[in-house]
């Protein structure tokens, strides 16, 4: 994970993403540095998930650009250095361990090393005992930890998480947050969306606040929660619904 040149900072330059004539992402410019855990906040439909997908390259912006530092090593290398965890973890119909080794295989890890690395990753997220269990038989929380193990095994420099605990109960949420903290400790840059303000307070070092596709605030978390600088931000922190 260290030694290779960094893909950070990530520069977003005038990003626009439109669908059906509506600008769902409307001119976002920002710079994300290595280090602080970035939490993207905003109401449903604010564009949080779209922004993550644009960053990860799952969607192509209509205007503007997503600029990772590629050091001339190309887009494929840049995507290898990232991993993404989705709100609804999709697992393959095979064992939990085989789901992790599958990701390792795609990353080009030699066959002999995959099993050991997969078991280490499963142990990291607390799923060592379930390695042989069919992934489809796992609970929602276990599946999300499996998705995190799959990401962990890849040693990404940047981990993108889209509402990773939105459909989980408090215990499973805590387990997921612990794994996210472990990624952070290991030096992985965290970029995540959530609409859970409590979770944002627990995890965020800096906040990007989106409203109707625009980036209204990008500040240290403490500043955002204590003195939001826009009326929309203030209403959001106060828990008002704005439409």
């Amino acid at each position: 994970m260290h030694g290779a040149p960094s893909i950070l900072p990530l520069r977003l330059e005038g990003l626009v993403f439109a669908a059906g004539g509506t600008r769902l992402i409307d001119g976002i410019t920002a710079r994300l540095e290595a280090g602080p855990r970035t939490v993207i906040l905003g109401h449903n439909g604010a564009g949080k998930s779209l922004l993550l997908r644009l960053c990860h390259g799952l969607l192509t912006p209509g205007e503007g650009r997503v600029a990772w530092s590629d050091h001339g090593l190309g887009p494929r290398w840049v995507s290898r250095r990232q991993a993404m965890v989705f709100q609804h973890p999709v697992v393959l119909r095979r064992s939990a361990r085989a789901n992790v080794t599958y990701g390792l295989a795609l990353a080009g890890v030699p066959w002999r090393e995959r099993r050991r690395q997969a078991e280490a990753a499963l142990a990291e997220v607390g799923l060592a005992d379930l390695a042989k269990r069919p992934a489809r038989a796992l609970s929602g929380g276990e599946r999300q930890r499996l998705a995190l193990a799959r990401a962990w095994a890849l040693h990404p420099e940047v981990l993108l998480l889209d509402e990773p605990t939105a459909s989980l109960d408090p215990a499973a949420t805590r387990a997921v947050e612990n794994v996210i903290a472990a990624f952070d400790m290991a030096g992985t840059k965290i970029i995540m969306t959530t609409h859970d303000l409590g979770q944002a307070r627990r995890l965020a070092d800096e906040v990007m606040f989106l409203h109707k596709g625009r980036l209204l605030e990008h500040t240290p978390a403490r500043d955002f929660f204590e003195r939001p600088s826009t009326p929309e931000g203030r209403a959001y922190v106060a828990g008002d619904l704005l439409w």
Partner: protein
Amino acid sequence: MGDFAEAFRTAGRLILEGDPALVAIVLLSLRVSLTAVALAALLGLPLGALLALARFPGRAGVIVILNACMGFPPVIAGLVLYLLLSRAGPLGSWGLLFTPTAMVIAQCSLVTPIVAAITRQLIEDLWAEHREQLKSLGATRLRAAATLLWDARLSLGTAVLAGFGRASAEVGAIIIVGGNISGVTRTMTTAIALETLKGDLSLALALGLILLALALGVNSAAQIASEALRRRAS
């Protein structure tokens, strides 16, 4: 009614005695249909998966044609193949007309669209669910197609079974390219068609009963195998 009762009795006797002609017909039927289905699976599964993930102009048209081919009339498939394989035809020099190989080709061409069309639908639905995750992990479309085929293996068994149903029940194509030659290309369905016309209801009935039993047997075996797989890899 006496004729029917008599026919049933004779049918039972033929089966219980293991009449050699009957056994030969049953074995040839199985050989032809199972080979055809195996080949159709080898062709249809990857074809369906690639079509599910590929995007190209005219794709919608290809899918409509493929789906329509699921109901392709066997006699027309047989006729076309007959024209190709007959002595004067472009493939006449292969000398395949009226051989089991010609029957395998005929059934394979009927079953491949069924396997491919069902596979295409199944894999396309799975792709919708898995697309972002697989792209995020860096899978190419080709790799994703292979991965999703394996992921859908339980449901795809049904596609192959549907193909086997088609192959084992069809008579129109193999009677044209096989010729229903006794001891060479006579299968259960062609024999039933012939014997019924000749009035030998007992042999037709005996073959009909065996055909039904085989269909039931193959599907039960598949069901048991699928249950075992499901328990192992849910």
